[in-house]
């Protein structure tokens, strides 16, 4: 029997906090065989990253490994001294982190960092190391590696930078690569390429991979075996196909079930809406927004050439009452700028937005109508609630501002009602936002949005900061509220699966241009634009499990 590259037995990691001890990893055991790609999945707080940190000996103090053992090729490594652990890192265990910007030193060229790493671990001369670095970069898919090797990290895009990081991790020929959320900071189209590069390089160099991620889709396309973690414990292990198709443990069943997929689901209500209905509730016509580039507040006063950047270019769509329009696009596609113009935060350079027939940028009356009818749900539930306000006051603000309810008992009564609607106990109204989890906060944000009794809600990435199981709950809640109050949604997301599940019609934004627009099923099943097709191919999805 072959010796596993990595063998973890009954690992326990404790974090003393004030007078108590928090157990981040609680008796975790699994093996990784040579050349194998093992995915470790779990929601936030599951202890998956902590397990990775324990293997490379980088647990931040005051955290510590309390018991258990970690063996690399049969030798124990958890009880080594700092210096010996440091020698393992890079040489025998390579690392790829989430943010490629912080894992490269911005002051050194890419080549210098690679050559340094190679020479630190392998007995090569400067020029040999440089040649090896160029080979590695080429292998990682960096075009013209011989020229680009002397560039600085900021001269590479996010995806290219992550390729460099992978080359760096593999440079010294380690037996194991630990990749912690290697693609979470990247756009979907880049994500797919990086997964391929990671897989290819590791199999070329015979390195086993421990892939830590919250994204089942990534695992489905990458890993051979899967370790599902929850609350610091291993819930289930098995091959990827087995777990995704036939999960055994109740937790895994629920987890798999709550992951939205870009495949059509049974019972999906897709009433095809006419693409451009003049009677539609929300109409966006020829929307354009330009931004001035790089001018300080004083230089702005001077005459001179102004460079313009067109963030949104001639976007038109309409949403019938009570339906959801999904707007998808990668970062920088202008989707958030669209949202800001529709809710009244950013003035359009040209174009028209009407809600229920009122031009919301027409001034006076239009402004009033917008305040009454339009609300927004934000991406980050940590930043969208004022941390110094109590939940009651946060939810009451819209009704107080618009004069819907003024006296104290009436306000409290309405707040309690709204909390019930979003399935929170009304007794929480005296608490502060920091006492809630991310999903609960997003419910509070939804209650606030509903508080002004709006008819149209713009949801800007409403679930992308949440774990999948919580995401499913929040999406369910949004659908229920939509049918209860007849709400109209504009759903903005980079997550195609979420958009497919929620929307009746979809628009695809690319570099500020709406490249495609139509009923959801038509777009997902027979995309017309090249960009849409590429996007749909690239997205990691659990339906694509090998």
């Amino acid at each position, binding site marked *: 029997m072959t010796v596993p590259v990595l063998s973890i037995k009954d690992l326990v990691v404790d974090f003393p906090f004030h007078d108590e001890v928090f157990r981040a990893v609680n008796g975790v055991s699994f093996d990784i065989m040579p050349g194998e790609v093992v995915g470790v999945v779990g929601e936030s707080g599951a202890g998956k990253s902590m397990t990775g940190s324990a293997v490379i000996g980088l647990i931040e103090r005051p955290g510590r490994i309390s018991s258990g053992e970690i063996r690399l090729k049969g030798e124990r490594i958890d009880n080594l001294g700092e210096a010996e652990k440091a020698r393992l890192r890079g040489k025998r265990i390579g690392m790829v982190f989430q943010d490629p910007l912080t894992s490269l030193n911005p002051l050194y060229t890419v080549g210098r960092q690679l050559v340094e790493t190679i020479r630190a671990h392998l007995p090569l001369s400067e020029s040999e190391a440089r040649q090896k670095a160029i080979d590695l970069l080429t292998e990682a898919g960096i075009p013209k590696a011989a020229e680009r090797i002397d560039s600085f990290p900021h001269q590479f895009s996010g995806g290219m930078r992550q390729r460099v990081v992978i080359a760096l991790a593999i440079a010294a020929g380690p037996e194991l690569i630990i990749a912690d959320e290697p693609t979470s900071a990247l756009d979907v189209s880049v994500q797919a390429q990086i997964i391929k590069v990671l897989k290819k390089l590791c199999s070329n160099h015979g390195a086993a991979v421990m892939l830590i991620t919250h994204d089942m889709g990534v695992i489905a396309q990458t890993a051979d075996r899967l370790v599902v973690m*929850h609350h610091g414990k291993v819930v289930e292990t098995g091959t990827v196909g087995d777990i995704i198709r036939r999960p055994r443990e109740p937790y895994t069943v629920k987890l798999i079930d709550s992951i939205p997929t870009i495949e059509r689901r049974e019972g999906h209500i897709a009433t095809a809406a006419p693409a451009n209905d003049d009677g539609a509730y929300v109409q966006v016509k020829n929307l354009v927004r330009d931004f001035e580039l790089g001018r300080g507040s004083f230089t702005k006063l001077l005459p001179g050439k102004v460079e313009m950047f067109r963030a949104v270019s001639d976007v038109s769509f309409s949403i019938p009452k009570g339906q959801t329009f999904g707007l998808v696009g990668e970062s920088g596609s202008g989707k958030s700028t669209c949202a800001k113009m529709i809710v009244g935060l950013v003035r359009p350079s040209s174009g028209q937005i009407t809600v229920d027939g009122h031009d919301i940028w027409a001034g006076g009356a239009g402004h009033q109508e917008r305040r009454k009818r339009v609300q927004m749900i*934000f991406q980050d539930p940590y930043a969208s609630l004022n941390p110094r306000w109590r939940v009651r006051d946060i939810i009451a603000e819209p009704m107080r501002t618009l004069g819907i309810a003024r006296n104290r008992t009436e306000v409290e009564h309405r707040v309690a009602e709204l909390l019930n609607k979003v399935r929170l*106990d009304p007794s929480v109204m005296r608490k502060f936002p920091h006492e809630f989890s991310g999903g*609960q906060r997003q419910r509070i944000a939804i209650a606030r949005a509903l508080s002004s009794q709006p008819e149209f809600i713009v949801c800007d990435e409403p679930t992308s900061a949440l774990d999948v199981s919580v995401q499913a709950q929040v999406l369910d809640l949004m659908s229920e509220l939509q049918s209860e109050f007849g709400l109209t949604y504009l759903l903005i997301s980079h997550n195609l699966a979420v958009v497919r599940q929620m929307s009746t019609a979809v628009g695809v934004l690319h570099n500020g241009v709406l490249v495609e627009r139509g009923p959801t099923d038509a777009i997902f099943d027979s995309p017309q634009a090249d960009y849409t097709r590429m996007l749909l191919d690239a997205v990691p999805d659990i339906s694509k499990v090998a």
Partner: protein
Amino acid sequence: MTDLPQTSTQPEPAAKSPSRWKAFWRSDIVWSYRRSPVTIVASIVALLLVLMAVFAPWLAPYNPFNPATLNLMDGFTPPNSASYSGNYFLMGTDNQGRDVFSTIMYGMRVSLFVGVLATLLAMIMGVGLGLVAGYVGGVIDAVSLRVADVQLSFPAVLIALLVFGVARGVIPPNQQEGAAIWVLILAIGLANWAQFARTVRGATMVERQKDYVAAARILGVNPFFILLRHVLPNVVGPVLVIGTIGLALAIIEEATLSYLGVGVPPTQPSLGTLIRIGQQFLFSGEWWILLFPAITLVLLALSVNLLGDWLRDALNPKLR
């Protein structure tokens, strides 16, 4: 963080909260206080000094400003030794027979009064300007920040002296003595607003990007209320820190000005005035007249400063 088994059809129960006192005792800020002996000592010293100053009329053994109780023959009595009149003077007496211990207590009153009011003035000016500059941006921001930069390039004492000189020219001579303490407060306050303005501006620029401000803007909340009710509560942390450290600085600035003779009138001596009086006698051997007020000033400024340092660290999550 969240449990999967929770079904979305049931209201989530409120998280169990321990008693209010226990929550307070376990909160991060109290925790870091309990773990810092220096801070505990500093806060006790500062509290004692402040109490001594506030309750000086009731606590001081003598009233050093009532000529009827003074005996010139008690002058220059060394600390803890027999005096002409038989009265006991813990820290000795000055040239006019005033009890040094009592004058220090009364002097601290003046120092703290000036320091606290000047810091409050600087805080109100700086926070107000900083909020507006950070939120509105543009030309208002550029102009007010440039003014702050220019002012920060001069020593605060120099600016206070300038304000003082102008005031002396404007206020009629017969009112100058009564107005002196208010001019002093104005001078020190004007010299210190820039720190607050800069910090608050930066913090405001961070906060205004956050979505809770956007949510209020979408509702059409008046910008004044957004600043007052949304942004201000979220920038008070750094303001408190600069305020505490600024209080120590203001006390020292007041002492400096009084030492230079431009501060409070000698009939109402502050710690700085006492030190100025004391240094006349240092070389003739009456060291106590200088030393005790000087030690008090150091203790006061140091303890307040240490509290400010601790507050800064305790409120900074990066150092935790």
